[in-house]
């Protein structure tokens, strides 16, 4: 069946997916650059195209709180936010995961204050990385659309029942009109299916108490269980991606996308839209005889340690390129994570960390080329003097 391709911004593509999913409850607070999603979805509500109860709350804290209440009441629930909004939700992020609310949240990845900045980087979701949510990062608007649908199935899988964050880059994706191939409404409806909630506050036959107080005698058990559930969700995440790709002829990677990695000696590991220019840079290096490749990490939580090690273990040099920093830490989040995951591995490439594109600083092909050249030089020298470098900083 020929599907419709349309020109949509990343935000509008997400709103389209939300329209097709037609969730029971959407509670949101507007924030740049997520606003286009709220506005577009609000149009669908005003026109009665969706059956959703739309709760235009007074803050992001209440947005996620209302989502928790709705989810606990057995409703399919979605929200979206960005940057400071996600930071304001921080407290409730942990609660949503601990209570196993299968909420889908689209986060338009934007820098955190101070200084205030509305442009893209990953500091918002990286700041929320340990809350117990599944994290998926999108390459473009098409993937943001696909991921919103896939995330609904992942969150609501009875072996998962966890909230999911879908991250797409501010402006470069959120406000960029691209060609998006939409599924038919019915296809989406059939794919996401009926929501079978884990428990419901509206089910009067089985009274439930949700949100109990835990003394030291059970807190660790509860948290240990959460760790197990999110670690085990990887299998479901892969299965649902495979089902989606097979059904709809798509190619959305569940864990990571590898580009020219079969024989690569040097690679860039990055997330989201900036990996495109890394791939173009790899092409240029390959034309000069350097075996360059790119790994685009899509699943950040649960962290796919085994798959990543498999992908990097034969490299000579690996550049971990991140649109986020960790202040006072030895290196930025993904680098720390990967180093920790590979702590006892014998065969490791030489690794260096590059912080790039903070606060919307444009990431260019030449930046990625310089990173490739730098990691090649480091390997040739056999040493890494500056573990973490900042690319494109005036200085």
């Amino acid at each position: 069946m020929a599907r419709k391709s349309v020109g949509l911004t990343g935000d509008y593509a997400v709103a389209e997916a939300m329209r097709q999913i037609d969730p029971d409850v959407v509670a949101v607070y507007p924030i740049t650059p997520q606003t286009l999603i709220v506005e577009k979805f609000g149009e669908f509500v005003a026109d009665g195209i969706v059956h959703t109860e739309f709760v235009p709350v007074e803050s992001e804290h209440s947005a996620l709180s209302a989502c928790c209440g709705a989810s606990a009441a057995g409703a399919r629930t979605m929200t979206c936010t960005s940057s400071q909004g996600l930071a304001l939700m921080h407290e409730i992020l942990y609660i949503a995961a601990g209570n196993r609310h299968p909420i889908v949240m689209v986060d338009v990845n934007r820098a955190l204050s101070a200084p205030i900045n509305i442009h893209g980087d990953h500091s918002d979701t990286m700041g929320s990385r340990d809350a117990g949510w599944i994290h998926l990062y999108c390459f473009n608007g098409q993937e943001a659309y696909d991921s919103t649908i896939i995330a609904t199935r992942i969150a609501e899988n009875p072996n998962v029942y966890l909230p999911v964050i879908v991250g797409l880059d501010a402006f470069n994706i959120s406000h960029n009109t691209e060609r998006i191939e939409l599924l038919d409404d019915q296809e989406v409806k059939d794919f996401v299916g009926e929501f079978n909630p884990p428990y419901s506050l509206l089910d009067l036959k089985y009274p439930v108490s949700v949100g109990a107080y835990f003394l030291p005698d059970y807190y660790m058990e509860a948290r240990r269980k959460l760790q197990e559930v999110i670690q085990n969700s990887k299998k479901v995440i892969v299965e649902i991606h495979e089902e989606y790709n097979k059904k709809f002829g798509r190619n959305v990677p569940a864990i990571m996308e590898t580009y020219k990695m079969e024989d690569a000696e040097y690679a860039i590991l990055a997330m989201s839209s900036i990996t495109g220019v890394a791939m173009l840079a790899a092409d240029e290096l390959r034309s000069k005889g350097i075996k360059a490749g790119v790994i685009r990490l899509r699943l950040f939580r649960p962290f796919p340690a085994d798959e990543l090690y498999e992908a990097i273990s034969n490299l000579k040099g690996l550049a971990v390129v991140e649109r986020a920093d960790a202040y006072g830490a030895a290196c930025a989040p993904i680098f720390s994570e990967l180093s920790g995951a590979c702590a006892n591995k014998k065969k490791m490439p030489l690794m260096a960390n590059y912080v790039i594109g903070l606060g919307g600083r444009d990431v260019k092909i030449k930046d990625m080329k310089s990173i490739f050249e730098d990691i090649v030089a480091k390997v040739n020298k056999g040493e890494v003097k500056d573990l973490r470098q900042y690319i494109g900083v005036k200085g």
Partner: protein
Amino acid sequence: MNKDIKRIEVPCEEKLVWEEMPLGNTLVGGANSECLKTGTWRVQHPTVNKEKCTNCMTCWLFCPDMSIVVEKKNNKYEMLGFDPVHCKGCGVCSKVCPVNAIEMVLGSDFENTEKPFLR
């Protein structure tokens, strides 16, 4: 309601291991706290003079520990006494009783928990 989620029956002394933690730490099936014996907190206990008592149910309404035992007899609720396992001995009942039928007596009287209720 998901059929996999069952009420966990936890006798007071037994402990769950981490794999057994219920989904979302949710407690299913309604109140189960009655196995917690808050009556041990008591240093005084109420007694009722049934000669005076008019079965007005004021003590039943105000008792914060749901420890006033009542029973329907001849289509009317009758106050029988106090739940010795849970009554914390706060004395609110004695103060709200409009006919002063309840008196507080020193001593926990907790040894007598075998009795269905204190009178």
